[in-house]
């Protein structure tokens, strides 16, 4: 069985936010909603300083904490490992938002226009965006990265992977030891964030140094 996962090479990533905007354009997430983010870390003291951009998204954990707390069964895990929210079942209780250790989930009360902050679309494109958002996510529900499952159905890579200018992202089957993703994790000693929590995340990082 396929187990989808993502490998992010921190040696290639420059923190350009390409992934963030690719995700936004693909899913039409409204203002303040980021299914993909880039965090910044800084350590050390001048002049020995290490600044590191860290792209994050839903980790599509094998043991998702968000799924366990969902009272309606809206958060589900597909057979291929992708954690999804069924917006017809979601009641917007936001337990999952609290439970997710990665801050990957966003409750969206209603769609808002980027230019006006209001519910009315300000352009033809905003009308398209609103329609698409409501069709796929509705209002008053929790939303998150779905690994672009709609693109996967068409044999396309997730939008963030497709766009990444530094080609720092490799999407693939973690259960297949021959996949490029598995090979990179092995070769470059891939690590995961907050592994100690036992959620068994499926997003791996390759060290920058």
């Amino acid at each position: 069985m396929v187990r989808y996962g993502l490998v992010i090479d921190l040696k290639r990533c420059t923190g350009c936010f390409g992934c963030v905007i690719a995700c936004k354009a693909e899913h039409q997430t409204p203002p303040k909603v980021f299914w993909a983010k880039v965090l910044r870390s800084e350590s050390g003291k001048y002049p020995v300083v290490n600044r590191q951009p860290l792209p994050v998204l839903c980790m599509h954990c094998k043991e998702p904490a968000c799924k366990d707390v969902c009272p309606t069964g809206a958060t589900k895990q597909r057979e291929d490992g992708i954690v999804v929210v069924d917006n017809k079942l979601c009641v917007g209780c936001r337990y999952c938002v609290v439970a997710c250790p990665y801050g990957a989930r966003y409750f969206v009360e209603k769609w808002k226009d980027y230019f006006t902050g209001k519910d009315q679309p300000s352009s033809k494109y905003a009308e398209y965006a609103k329609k698409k958002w409501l069709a796929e996510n509705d209002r008053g529900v929790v939303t998150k990265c779905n690994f672009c499952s709609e693109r996967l159905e068409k044999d396309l890579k997730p939008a963030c992977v497709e766009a990444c200018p530094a080609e720092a992202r490799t999407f693939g089957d973690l259960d297949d030891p021959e996949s490029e993703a598995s090979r990179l994790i092995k070769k470059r000693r891939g690590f995961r964030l907050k592994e100690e929590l036992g959620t068994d995340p499926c997003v791996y990082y390759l060290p920058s140094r």
Partner: protein
Amino acid sequence: MSPPNSKEKVVKTSCGMCYGTCTIRARTCDDIVVGIEGEPDSPQGYGNVCAKGISSIMQLYDPNRLDYPLLRTNPEKGLDVDPEFKRISWAEALDIMEEKLRDCLNRDRRGLYCCSTPTFPSERAYNIICFQRAFGTPNYYVAGGGLHCGNGPHMVAGMYHASWSVIPDYKYCNLAIYWGCSKGHGAGHAALVAMKQAADARERGMRLIVFDPFQSAQASAAEEWVPIKVGTDAAVALSMTNLLLNEYKIFDSQYLKTKTNAPYLVGTDGLYARDEKTDLPLVWDPIEKIAIPFNDKNLKDAALFGDHEAHGDKCKTSLEILRNHIKKYTPEYASKISDVPANTIRRVAKEFGEEARIGSTIMIDGHELPYRPAASIYFRGAGGHYNQAWQCVSLILLNHIIGCGDMPGGALAFGPPVHLGYPGTGRLGFNVEPDRDGLLVAKSWPYAHLPYPPKDPHDPPERLDLQDMFYVPTYTTIMMWENNEELWTKFKIPYRPDVMLNFASNQIMSIGNPHEVLDHFLKKFRFIISFNIFASEFEEAVADLVLPDTSFLERYTVSTTFPTVGVSCHSTGLGDWIWAIRQPAVEPKPERRAMVDVILEMSERLGLRERYYEALNEWINRAYGGYLKPENKWNTKEPLKFEKIMDTILRDKFGDDKGLEFFKQYGYLKWPKRVEEVYWRAFSDVRVPVYLEWIIKAGRKSRAIAEKYGVPDLVDWSFHSALPDYHPCPSYTTQTSENSEHDLLAFYWRSALHTYSMTMENPWLNEISENDPYTYTIQLNPDTAKRKGVKSGDVVWLENTKGHKTQGRVYLTEGIKPDHVGIAACAGHWAKGQPIAKGKGVFFNELIEVDKEHTCPLSLGQDICVAVKLYKSEGS
């Protein structure tokens, strides 16, 4: 993904969110652009696309865009003045435009000033440069980008590489040293292409050492960040050259002998010793023990060092003079200037020299070439200073000491200056050539003047910026100096600013202190016409007629990737060439018109058709490697139409089957680069100077003109010498003077999220900028903050010695040199026409003085590092 049953279309075009011009697929759904994706097979982006590119949808559909022409009704102009714009029709707008331009033609055609943005080089060529030449005015400049980076960095790269800039040969380079540049990190030259190439290089193991006062994106990805006092790079580079030549004895003798003027003999007058018969520069043949022309077929060897006699004069080789000249740049001396530890300078110089592997070769496609996998790379950070010309020479010279100029692994001309022709037709070919003295001359250099040889100066100058009496500057800011009227009078310039034609540049924000730019320059114009997609600070402050332009997703342009010089996009190294067009993905709203169409219509109305066609011929010759074939010559009886112009150029270069229809369908055409094009220097008999003898002579000519018209101190003429030096910025004196309140050095850096000042209005880019700790803040070292009594999040003022000040929120980071202040991009907008951008970020350029004191005396580029005092804003 689009909803079911929608009408989908994909248009292949070129991105216009920066000058990287990646090939993109604009995906439309029911005639709305709903997605921007990379074109997988294009070498221009490799199928990737960046945050700015994808966000262009939000620019296209910004409800704040201009939808119809506007006429200013308030005669008062100023930063806080309501222009009281009135909607007018295009018919009225064109009538007014024609009347104003015709009046200018009748008064003095030179009174027209054409200005443009650096973001759209191709559009600029057809709607500004050709029109400017057709109209007959010499006055033209590119705001912001041109003045802040165009002079020192571009012209020096032109002298040494016949190119707009230099980029490491990412495929083979093992050690790159960056001096204040962001190459390969999502901004600037070949933004996206270089980003993948740089990531590949890092993964392969290329080491990067970054000298920068700020730990930028590129510095944080580097093996080593070396904090340096802003603008002192020349001192460190000259010290490295001193170590390589005088102490470590690591230099490429063969390269220096054959690819530079190192062996040329220089007499006691500082000029070349020349052969009496041929007037060619002499070199010393140590075998025959004679002085002989550098290119004489009987030359057996050329001495690189030493004192030698020629015509009874005691001469030295050029390299001998350089080597002696830079002995004063000991690592200890350079350290005192730059704050870089002397042992770091020693170590980096040694690593750089050793990594060059002098003497080694590599086989590439059957050619055995020198293998020099080390490169010294600079750009705007090193450039934006009082000493920018000599600073750039100092940095680029490192490459020519180790012999890595355009050699595998080394510093490559960005957008190679050699193209041997499109294989299908043999057209579009150009090559570098030597002048009589054997020095490198660029063949394809359509912007400004050739970097070398120096053009003859105008006596008296004709341009309002006096650029034409100099020989290095691309543009100058002299037309904005407080004493401009006095200078124009003394130089007997008979006309004054009359009409301005502006294309998408925001001159209020992108040059320097807006009050001074406004009072000293922009207010002098009778009438200002501006094409833009928004009403920016420029339109609101000074424009009389505002014309709503199309977005890059709504218009055509003929080539976004050629010429290779001045269009900042082609990849370096082996790979593919590409010619790409820009074409509409959607129709513009009815009252938005592409500027080029308006300009062509105006050329017709003003009776300039034939002159426009002439200008077009010259552009095609200089930019695309030769004039049109006779059978494609313009029929001047035909009115100017851009689609016809595009089709003619395309068919002329690529054949009758590859006209505009072909390019509309495919978007671009690519073909493989040849080794002789990429590593052209190994195949070309051209040299570059280690001793810039010609600057002495050219400087004397300019100085003579200045003296003739009673302005002997126009600039500091001592800069017009033949040897690089470190010269301090005026800000250092202020910063270090006793009890100085202005004790911090402020500089700005380029954010990968923004292109100049135009992208803050984009709500997606704005939102991530607001979330990012650096983009909209003032970066300060915690130790400095403690000393100043401020903490992260405090709102502070930065004020220069003239009392000009700007405000912003402090972000503390250990990644900045103490006593320095870093600011990203050109933010801090206040125009009503850009409400998303309004009030976001910091307006650094408020602090820049536009005057002689802050102008490089050689390149006339702007010094944009500023000594500031920092204090808390009341009630912050």
